């Protein structure tokens, strides 16, 4: 799929105030994450590559995304998802 030229006017879901922050983890961060929870990458929750936030963050299949949410119980809660096709 050819990427559309960024004219700076497209809608970016990540900038929307109701969309939690999505970011791609670096390889080191992924390694730390997996060892912290003692899991393989496949045991993480998934997110589809066609998800608008994933596309906006330019994540590829196999990447792990950190989602930072406002939480009613914990203030800030982190959630990790592996990008799948």
């Amino acid at each position, binding site marked *: 799929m050819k990427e559309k030229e960024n004219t700076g006017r497209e809608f970016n879901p990540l900038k929307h105030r109701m969309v939690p922050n999505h970011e791609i983890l670096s390889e080191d961060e992924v390694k730390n994450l997996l060892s912290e*929870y*003692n*899991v393989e990458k496949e*045991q*993480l*929750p998934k997110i589809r590559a066609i998800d608008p936030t994933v596309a906006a963050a330019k994540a590829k299949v196999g990447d792990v995304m950190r989602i930072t*949410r406002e*939480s*009613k*119980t*914990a203030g800030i*809660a*982190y*959630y*990790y998802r592996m990008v799948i096709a």
Partner: protein
Amino acid sequence: MVIATPKRIKQIRFGLISPKEFRKMSVTRIITADTYDDDGFPIEMGLMDTRLGVIDPGLRCKTCGGRAGECPGHFGHIELVAPVMHVGFAKLIRKILRATCRNCGALLLDPTQKKETVEKIRVLKKMGQSIEDVVNEVFKDARKAGKCQYCNEEQREIKFEKPTTFIEDGHKLMPTDIRSRLEKMTDEDIEVIGMDSKNARPEWIILTVLAVPPVTMRPSITLESGQRSEDDLTHKLVDIIRINQRFQENREAGAPQLIIEDLWELLQYHITTFIDNAVSGVPPARHRSGRPLKTLSQRLKGKEGRFRGSLSGKRVNFSARTVISPDPNLGMHEVGVPLAIAKELTITLYVTPRNINEVREYVRRGPDNHPGANYIVRADGRRLRITDKNSNELADLVELGWKVDRQMKDGDVILFNRQPSLHRMSIMAHEVKVLPHKTFRLNPAVCPPYNADFDGDEMNMHVPQTEDARAEAKILMHVRENIISPRFGGPIIGGIHDHISGLFLLTNSKDKINKDDALELLAKSEIWELPEPAGKEDGKPYWNGKQIFSQILPKGLDLEFKAEICEQCDTCKGADCENDAYVVIKDGVLEKGSIDEKAVGAFKSVILDKLIKEFNTALACKFIDDATRLSIRGIMRSGFSFGINDEYVPADAQNQINETLNMATDKVEKLILAYEAGELEQLPGRTIRETLEMEIMKELSRARDATGDIAGRHLGMDNSAVIMAKSGARGSMLNLTQMAACVGQQAVRGERIQRGYAGRTLSHFDKGDLGAQAHGFVKASYKGGLSPTEYFFHAIGGREGLVDTAVRTSQSGYLQRRLVNALQDLEVQFDGTVRDTRNMIIQFKFGEDGINPMNSDFSKTDAVKRIIDSVTGVKE
């Protein structure tokens, strides 16, 4: 026995069994209708042939060599002399016969339509959708053809007579005729009618071979007289074999066609009733006693059938069910069990050197002398029933390693349950207290978690049978461990109704309690000493209610909170509150404030919450028992009742109420006039009409509240309904307003009542009348009595409430089911993650904060604040 590794089911395919397959899966042909010979041994090639499996202990299956219990049973078969129809598929046969040629068997459609249909069916199947509509279309179109386009045969009208007869132009079609027609159908045509020729050829519906089910699914039972009683299916099979034989004899003897046809019909009847004994138009086959036989369909169908009765729901041993009734003298962790139930339910004791004497005593007492024992299991596994005749003898025989089924007795831990079991407190462990009479007795304080009342509710009891189960029940499920609900982090067990009224009356009054009364109040609470008296009157010491209540509080309890009766003043005066609504407890002494729902009520009790979180559950348990007992004695000191006179408002107040209501109706009239004149100011986002409705509703509800206030001024704390409403025991001030002052607007879907006749709600009003009275405003109070139109509107509003609850319970029940199914295997791990059975992470931290809601403070996480406060001694 080899345990096969579990395999995943990929697909289930339904089809018909071919005669070939029937013979292949059969272990023997059955030719004789006899079952056992004179020695009581199964006859070969009879219905009880040992190749079909065994049911008598001691015998071995000739097919697999297994003993009774190991052998799963094996099918046999009967070769039918003449083919017969399978009732369950008669309707399908009708459709196929009418859609196929009577001569060449071709499906009466043109080749292009056949091709298109097959294409459609393939696509639908691939997408996992129903092919029903397409196939029905095929049958409909094929039936219209008058002539076969393949062989030019003229088609004839086929009449179907339920359940299994087909008549073509007045000529009866025998199953042989039908079968030969169906056999002619090509595999291609079969696909067009949505069947799969490999799995289900239509002619297989006409049975030529009948499968004989294994004996394991139709075991015979030996009666006490020693006589064998056969299963209904066996009876039916005997009939089938007999007729089959007679048919053959008659045919071989060259009997006239009429007799042959009669016998054929009879064979059809027996096979039909063997499959389904409740077909309309067929008299059900009956047992000698006149009872209809339970044949194959009857085993599967209905509430008690295999699916709903045996697979989806099963009956449970060691359980009991009866009506519940209250007993405030029981501890909240106890349950009163009727003696009759206690004698029936047992707990297995394993005889050890330490308990052998005790066990012998139970056995000696026998089954009629509670607590005794009902059964004994010897070391060799033989189970003997204890009777009052053999009890002494058996007691002496008891040895180590034997097992004895002892009757339930006081102190046993059992599980107690009330449906619908929506949360975990719906099943809790209680301790048994064997009592006379026939109901389960429970302390009213545990009604909230079960959502139980005593208007005929029934509850279930289960007796754990192993030490592990009992330990688990005691540690995890005991009532004591479930006072705090994990739903909101507060107590769900606590005082209700009179418990709250009672303690409120006791602690809110300036009543002087003399020594006798004080001791009487505390008699059930194991309090042996009274504190310093509050004062002396006529030389005799007296105490106040707060002091009495303080006796059941543990030392070291410090608490300050606003009571339920707090009026939420703008600036709280704290301990100086003139309503005595600010509770101060210091070192287990109630210094200030009134005890009400906020202090001891289920769902709200601050005291219980504190006791559990900072003391222990046993103490909290004792507090509930003490508080409920004290409150009942407290309420009985003065008595507490409510009657029609408590709804009385003085004449001048009644005048004020009427005036308020009249003013409100006038105001409504003015609003309507303004609306009609087009002068009403429109609310944003509303039409003018909607605006009018909202304004009217607002005005009327304001008026109703105003009447409530007027009535409230005359109904003070001497009114028991007010006491109950303010202390949170039962009811609200709104209930009282409706009883004493004005019932108010009746609504359907949140709006004034609009439906009824054309242009008006009832014929008593003018068309187009928008006034209060014409749309369901009830001016009257319940005490004053409703006018006929008001009464009718009230019924409309009331009905909506009933419908709502009925709909809501079914909807929330289904929602609950879906949630439970989705979440039931998820588990919080030691690292705080929530994972499923495949060890996949569902949530990285349980609830995002990793906090067990049960340990939170009423769902708020202010434990840290509380600890800091308790250390620094500072209170905000």
